[in-house]
């Protein structure tokens, strides 16, 4: 069965978000901004003023550092764009969503259903995953214009807040819904049925590691 394709605004209505189903393929139109640990720390921990009107300008937060440069004349050159793994940003996301009204969190690998249920759903937000990973050149084609780069001097090119005008940028995959279901956990559960058979006959290592036991009074030998 071919997945369903949907074109969505980066300032989506709550009805449009409610219609999204796990596994739908999404293409985005409108303004999107990149924000990851650098931006989160600066805005939330150092309390710097966010240099955009959020969420009216954009409700789409991309966990991304683009392959891009700032030309000597101040213009921008953006080649490829790909997401980075989002689970590392769970620490900042609840406060970020509360502060910015972000409705679409776009990244790599999704979050846990616990994250979705505890702060995505109450904020009416969903997670879109990039595809691959990553379709950097295809997503790069969806960049109509780079509107601005904020905090480049403070954070460097990779961590700066890039403001991108998207024109049918995609593909992205809907990885959470308004019930807090998680696409990746659904797939993991299906794969889990087969694991025992694949591991049959293999042996655990004779030397264990902490992490395999969380009790530090344990020994790690055999």
């Amino acid at each position, binding site marked *: *069965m*071919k*997945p369903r394709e949907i074109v969505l605004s980066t300032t989506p209505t709550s009805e449009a978000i409610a219609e999204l189903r796990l*596994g739908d*393929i999404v293409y985005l139109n409108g303004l999107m901004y990149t924000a990851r640990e650098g931006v989160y720390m600066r805005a939330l921990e150092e309390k710097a003023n966010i240099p955009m009107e959020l969420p009216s300008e954009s409700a789409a937060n991309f966990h*991304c*550092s*683009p*392959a*891009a*440069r700032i030309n000597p004349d101040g213009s921008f*050159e953006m*080649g*490829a*764009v*790909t*997401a*980075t*793994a989002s689970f590392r940003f769970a620490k900042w996301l609840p406060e970020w969503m509360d502060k910015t009204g972000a409705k679409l969190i776009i990244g*790599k*690998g*999704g979050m846990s259903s616990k994250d979705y249920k505890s702060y995505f759903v109450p904020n009416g937000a969903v997670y879109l*995953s990039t*595809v*691959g*990973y*990553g*379709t*950097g*050149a*295809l*997503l*790069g*084609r969806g960049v109509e214009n780079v509107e601005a780069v904020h905090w480049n001097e403070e954070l*460097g*090119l*990779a*961590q700066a807040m890039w403001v991108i005008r998207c024109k049918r940028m995609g*593909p992205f*995959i809907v990885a959470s819904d308004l019930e807090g279901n998680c696409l*990746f956990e659904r*797939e*993991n559960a*299906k*794969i889990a*049925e*087969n*694991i025992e058979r*694949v*591991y049959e*006959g*293999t*042996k*655990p*290592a*004779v*030397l264990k*590691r902490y992490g395999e036991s969380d009790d530090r009074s344990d020994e790690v030998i055999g």
Partner: protein
Amino acid sequence: MIPIDLIQKTAETLMDKAAIEIPQDYLDGLQQAAKTEDGDLSSFVLKAMLDNYEAAKEDRRAMCGDTGVPRWFIKMGNEARIEGGMVALETALRRATANATNGVPLRPNRVHPLWRTDHDNNVGINAPEIEYGFEPEGDWIDLITVHKGGLFGTDYRMLFPSDGIQGIKRFYLDSLMAFGKRGLACQPAIIGIGLGGSKDTCMVLGKRAAVLRTVGSRNSDPRIAEMEDEFKELGNSIGMGAMGFVGKNMVIDCNIEVGYCHTGGMPMSVHAFCLSSRRAVARVWPDGRVEYRTDPDWFTDYQRRDTVEWEPVREAAE
């Protein structure tokens, strides 16, 4: 004497090629995978990746926004001499890395581990890595650049002889499962396994097995070659495909390299090269000839030699 300007110019071209052009051996492997894949979502992902490689080449833009951490493997024939010597070579490679980061553009990924200082050019302390290998004959230099993704898909473990093949399989599966879920390893990938060596060598062997050998190549030891086939099959029988979705393609190929280790141990490392298997190679001669290719051809008989003296294999006299 190999002209240093030519080395830098060639290195810059290689940086561009690695970031933009998917190597043919990996592309063939992925196309084959796409044919056999029957998971709905996995199939969609593989098709999108194939479209992506086309888009990258057409637009001359990097195939992935995370352009990895550029590094260099340098192979020299025993007679090769570099204009300005080895320090000039290293300077030229660092300059090429910085210039291409701005030129392609690539993502300036390299930062200080503690202070997060970013020179915006992928050059810094111990970056890019430059590693060397030598061959008994030749006056050429091979410049090999690899831009591997840096975060997921690699692990190391000290196993012991009593762990045996079943212990090796367990750690291999554990690595694929741990990093395959949600597609963190950006599979299906070329998986490299390092067995033996000192701990650091074990990592180096596995990394090189992943990034310096092509899809379809086999270890010259026939019993290791059999293990490579078996481990490819084993990884693809997990039931996990691209992005960790239900599927049957996790491993495009599995390459194993070995090194002699401590008699009591059997260290093992696992490395996943990603969907954007960025590698590009050029051989440069003193007369100015440059030949581009995508097969590093790193693991020659000389690299895998196991004796004190090296005696090249002579052709049969008759």
